[in-house]
């Protein structure tokens, strides 16, 4: 096995690359560009230049973005002093693929063009074979168990939502097991907040559907910092009381803003934006540690955010959305 690079080395490489992240000013120039071609021109003045040059038409922007994301994936692999921890941040892509594959198995659909992503910890082809034959030993045991649990549940009743929930539970069980084993407080804190926020999102969804706590209980992911009684009380309370209760948690501000927007628009778009911001800010505050994984994870999240922004702009430009509309949607994402 190759020796792992040190934290000092990895963090220093990230520090240089942080200067190449797109600035707010450039993102806005892209949003203001008169056409998709012009927006790409702005992008070609940045570190994206070689990828933009390869593009035949602006409609292929998605290919450009997935190439950039795989570059980031390779880069993180190369510099990560602790791949067991950095892999946790890519696990969501593996589980996305698992969801797609298992839903295809149970719900059918077209085999061609399944929306599989290549940047997970396990290559898509191996994942496919592993899902088809769990005994093959191609997948790690926690994934095999997850697939088995889905199979068992689907033998009784095929429910796409149940597939999602079972896989999410399996993913977070594994994530927290690794964080605890590695005693990585930073990653543990990050995923704990992520779980809390996902649970709060499920709470709002359940409330909107007018469901009781039994419905929510199925969806709650354990390992969060808020206890079950918080959720059971919240299901009975009016929204104002919920906002008040949330004040004593780290998510008071998120909930106050998100619930208001949720009541006004009926959507969770604002919640998702606030959730991303909250997690990004957590990492941002810790990324100055020159001897830890924080800066490396911070770069990965910043890159994911940047790619999300470019996608919003390109979709907007190709569909001829006016610049103000795009900017409005960007403000929802940009930190």
């Amino acid at each position, binding site marked *: 096995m190759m020796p792992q690079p040190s934290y*000092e*080395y990895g*963090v*220093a*490489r*990230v520090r*240089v690359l942080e200067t190449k992240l797109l600035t707010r000013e450039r993102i806005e120039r892209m949003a203001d560009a008169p056409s998709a071609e012009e927006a790409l021109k702005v992008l070609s003045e940045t570190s994206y230049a070689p990828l933009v040059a390869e593009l035949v038409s602006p409609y292929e922007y998605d290919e450009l973005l997935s190439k950039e994301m795989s570059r980031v994936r390779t880069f993180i692999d190369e510099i990560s002093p602790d791949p067991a921890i950095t892999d946790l941040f890519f696990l969501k892509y593996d589980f996305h693929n698992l969801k797609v594959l298992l839903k295809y198995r149970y719900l059918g659909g077209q085999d061609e063009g399944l929306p599989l992503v290549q940047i997970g910890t396990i290559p898509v082809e191996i994942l496919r074979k592993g899902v088809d034959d769990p005994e093959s030993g191609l997948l790690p045991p926690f994934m095999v168990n997850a697939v088995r649990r889905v199979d068992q549940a689907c033998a009784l009743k095929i429910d796409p939502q149940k597939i999602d929930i079972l896989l999410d539970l399996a993913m977070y069980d594994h994530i927290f097991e690794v964080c605890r084993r590695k005693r990585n407080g930073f990653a543990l804190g990050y995923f704990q907040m992520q779980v809390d926020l996902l649970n709060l999102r499920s709470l709002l969804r359940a409330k909107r559907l007018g469901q009781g706590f039994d419905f929510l209980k199925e969806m709650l992911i354990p390992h969060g910092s808020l206890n079950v009684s918080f959720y059971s009380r919240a299901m009975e309370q009016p929204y104002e009381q919920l906002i008040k209760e949330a004040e004593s948690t780290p998510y008071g501000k998120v909930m106050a803003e998100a619930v208001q927007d949720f009541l006004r628009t009926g959507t969770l778009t604002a919640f998702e934006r606030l959730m991303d911001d909250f997690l990004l800010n957590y990492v941002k505050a810790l990324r100055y540690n*020159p001897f830890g994984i924080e800066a490396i994870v911070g770069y990965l999240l910043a890159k994911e955010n940047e790619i999300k922004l470019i996608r919003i702009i390109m979709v907007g430009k190709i569909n001829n959305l006016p610049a103000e509309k795009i900017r409005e949607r960007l403000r929802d994402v940009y930190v």
Partner: protein
Amino acid sequence: MELGHIFAVLGTAASTTGTGLSMGQIYAILGAAAAVVLAGLGSVFGVAIAGQSAAGVVTEDPDKFGQVLLLQALPGTQGIYGLLIGFIIMNKMNIFGGMVDVSTETGLLLFVSALPIAIVGLISAIYQGKTSAAAIGIIAKRPEELGKAITFPVVVETYAVLALLASFLMVNGIPV
């Protein structure tokens, strides 16, 4: 086992082998060795920590080589200070010209005089290496701020210089 006991055994062993070393001489040389070895090891750790950061920056941006090299070299000074004190002690003992005999007390005094730079050199170099690694992070993002970046590890240097001064004054003040 008590350290003094080991030295005493060594001393007897030495005298019985016919080299004719006194306890005083052994203590003095031990002091010189401690200054060179401990301060030198500190510098090894220090420049290695800062060096990994420097290599990371140069991988992405080779133009910053000069600036990061300067920061990497800072924790290297402790090793030089240790060698300096070691050299003065060796010189005092006239090690290159047959070695003068000193009493056990004088030898112990020379040994103790070497301790400030040996111990402070070891620890300050490691921490200076970490501070340098962090300062290299500044250069990665803002190469124009070299002056500010260099200040932080230099503050750590202060205490290595103070230890050097203490060792130097003590060694100088001991009549041989």
